[in-house]
């Protein structure tokens, strides 16, 4: 077990390091920099040179990278080029709404997908199952920005039930925070629920043809109870894995959702930082997101080892 942990941990550090290099290089390959954005159409070559010198953008890529990654190892992500904020503090403050949005969506999506997916699988030869599948397809196809606008128009503008935008921290007012997150979570979770539903459905249909299901039925289980007692258990484990792997997709989705709903999360910070070429913030944010995803993967590797004895034994034989 310890071997699994250490191997996964070393792999995670190596992946994070490789990822940071890729992110750094890609950002430098994108046209323009913060100096061109700040001076915009009023720049002169001299003013651009002064600003690049002030921000250290005239140094070589290697120097810039080493300076930044050195800070990362010291636990200091530095300041935004313009000095508007301290990056580490800013990211820490913005993690709260993004994590609530991301994990809130997972929290809604996984149980919903289990219920809908099992129902669909048990009725997969009937119109009811096909209808659920069709609805799931629609859920997959609707773009998040469109869904967000529809939700806002219906539930905020016309019905007036929920706020159209904004976010209040759960530490300040939990009820208002919940109100402000209902529509964003609904938006983000719909697509992912559709993905999971289809996953559960397919997995359950496969499970229902397994030998152990026939055995369960021979022992007196009905189709439904066999599916719920035995089939669902076997489908739930890979679903959890898929769920964790979808965190990256959820964070990517949060960029759109946070922007539409005016949520001060890391998705919105990432978008505006890319647009303004605030490279040091973008690479720090990307590294944090990468570490979150890799940490979840590490956790899954360890949990898998704990849950599945075959993995432990296989690792032990090496």
């Amino acid at each position, binding site marked *: 077990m310890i071997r699994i942990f250490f191997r996964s941990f070393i792999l995670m550090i190596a992946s994070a390091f490789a990822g940071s290099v890729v992110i750094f290089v890609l950002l430098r390959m994108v046209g323009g920099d913060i100096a061109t954005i700040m001076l915009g159409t009023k720049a002169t070559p001299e003013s651009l040179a002064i600003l690049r010198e002030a921000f250290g953008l005239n140094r070589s890529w290697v120097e810039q990278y080493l300076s930044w990654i050195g800070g990362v190892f010291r636990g200091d992500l530095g300041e935004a080029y313009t000095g508007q904020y301290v990056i580490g503090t800013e990211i820490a403050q913005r993690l709260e709404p993004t994590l609530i949005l991301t994990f809130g969506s997972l929290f809604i999506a996984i149980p919903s997908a*289990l219920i809908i997916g099992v129902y669909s699988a048990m009725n997969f030869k009937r119109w009811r199952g096909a209808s659920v599948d069709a609805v799931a397809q629609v859920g997959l196809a609707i773009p998040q920005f469109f869904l967000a606008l529809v939700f806002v128009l219906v539930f905020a503008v016309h019905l007036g039930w929920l706020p159209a935008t904004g976010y209040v921290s759960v530490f300040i007012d939990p009820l208002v925070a919940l109100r402000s997150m209902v529509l964003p979570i609904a938006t983000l979770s719909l697509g992912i629920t559709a993905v999971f539903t289809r996953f559960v459905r397919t997995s359950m249909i496969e499970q229902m043809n397994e030998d152990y299901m026939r055995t369960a039925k021979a022992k007196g289980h009905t189709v439904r109870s066999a599916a719920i007692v035995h089939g669902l*258990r076997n489908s739930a484990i890979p679903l959890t894995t898929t769920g964790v792997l979808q965190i990256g997709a959820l964070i990517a989705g949060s960029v759109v959702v946070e922007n539409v709903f005016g949520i001060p999360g890391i998705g919105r910070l990432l978008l505006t930082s890319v647009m303004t070429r605030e490279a040091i913030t973008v690479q720090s944010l990307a590294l944090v997101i990468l570490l979150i995803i890799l940490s979840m993967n590490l956790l899954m590797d360890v949990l898998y080892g704990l849950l599945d004895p075959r993995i432990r034994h296989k690792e032990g034989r090496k």
Partner: protein
Amino acid sequence: MKKFLKLLSFIAMALSVTLVSTALPSAAAPAPGTVGSTTLRASHPQKPTSWNYLQDGTSALYVPTYLNILESLFETTKTGKLKPLLATSYTVSKNGLKYTINLRKAKFHDGSEFNSADVVYSLQKNKTGLSGVLNGPLDKVISVKASGPSKVIVKLSQPSNQFAGGLGKPSTMISPEGYFESANVGKKLIGTGPFKFGAFRADIDLTLDAYAGYWGKKPFFKKVIHEFRSDENATISALKTGQLDIVGMLLGAGVDQVKQFQTNKNYQTFFWPSTSASYLFLNPNTKSLQDERVRKAIAYAIDRQPIITAAVGGYGKPSCVVVPTWTSPWNSDYCPYPYSIAKAKSLLKDAGFENGLTLDFPYLTLAEFPVSFEILSAQLATVGITVKGRGLDIGTWVKEVWSTPTPVYDINHITNNAALSAYGCKLTTPPYGNNILCDPVFEAFIDNNDKIVDPAKYAQAMKAMANHIADESWMIELFSKNEPGIANAKLTGIAKYRTDYEMDYRKIKWKTK
């Protein structure tokens, strides 16, 4: 497993109940958006990249801060006259080279007294600012000296109309002496205005807190939350639900929604007169465009009204002269190449392009530019000019097109508030800048016009300059746009004549009836 399913059902029910209960309107309505509230919520699409105005040239920095937090010596009124702010009056010597400026008593937000040393310091700093908004009008300043605590003498190398006008613009914004060497720089602004720089959340909002020690009339609102919102659909939804009181400027998707508010008595719409010129500019390095017949053909091929209708919601005025502020006395209806497909085709044929011409057209993927590109490409196609579009974000666009000695484009579109003098060949603004196109006639206009002190003669000279640019057709003006904004109908005091770099919160209040 049954227990597990029961648990799932319970969670689903609990969530549903919670969501429904939180969705019910709360008894205590939120204060902002309510008549009588002393908090004003406003939005603007641009987010400032920096608070250091010596480094940042974007209007996003000035929008919430100029006049509200930072004050200049004077402010420019609706009629273009100067009204005292931190200065009470000024006199000019007969030769136009010496300005004596008298100052008022005021206090900065940090409690320090405002005096002539702050003006000397600020003007010297502003002259070294990297942006033309700051340093342009101060270009001819050779010295700034204090004459006692409440008087300043500014000497110029030549009479300058730009300096005279700049007294009422951000180029004379005053910060306390030593500010740019302090830890506050880039993080917090300290001025003398009616509002103090409050809480700032990067790319989210800036809170302006009313300043109790303000020298003038105190603003009605104790707090203004100035939000940076780029998604205009979401912004309009927030306005409809009362989460916003003013939507400052609509540039993109929101423009088409303005009409629905014009007929709704709960809202008021207003249109800031543009201080920008929206024009096509052609690359002087492109061989085909060096033939003036091709440039004129492009000018003839453009029908401006459909572009205005589709790209800026109809809120604009066709124009053929590049004059950033359409209320300028030197603006005119002069149009040397009015829309004519026949003339465009004929000129192209004379230039040897009867079989057509292909041009590279990288365009910005924001505001009016994608739509205007579509219409322009269709209009140019009718005369045989094929444009190959490349949508670019602002960072890439600036790098490829603007401020570069080797620009990568043939034809382009921009809306720019730079003064005509910013297009000199020693500067970087295309198409004349970067020494790519040094037109001696245009250069002479730039050198000479600023020296003309008489307003009527100055306007005449500027008109000749604008007409010359139109004749040459390296820059082809399309339109001046009105920038729409929307506000709660119960608000009054919105300065609708203000420019696109000011959201003036000083006099806004709720109507009494």
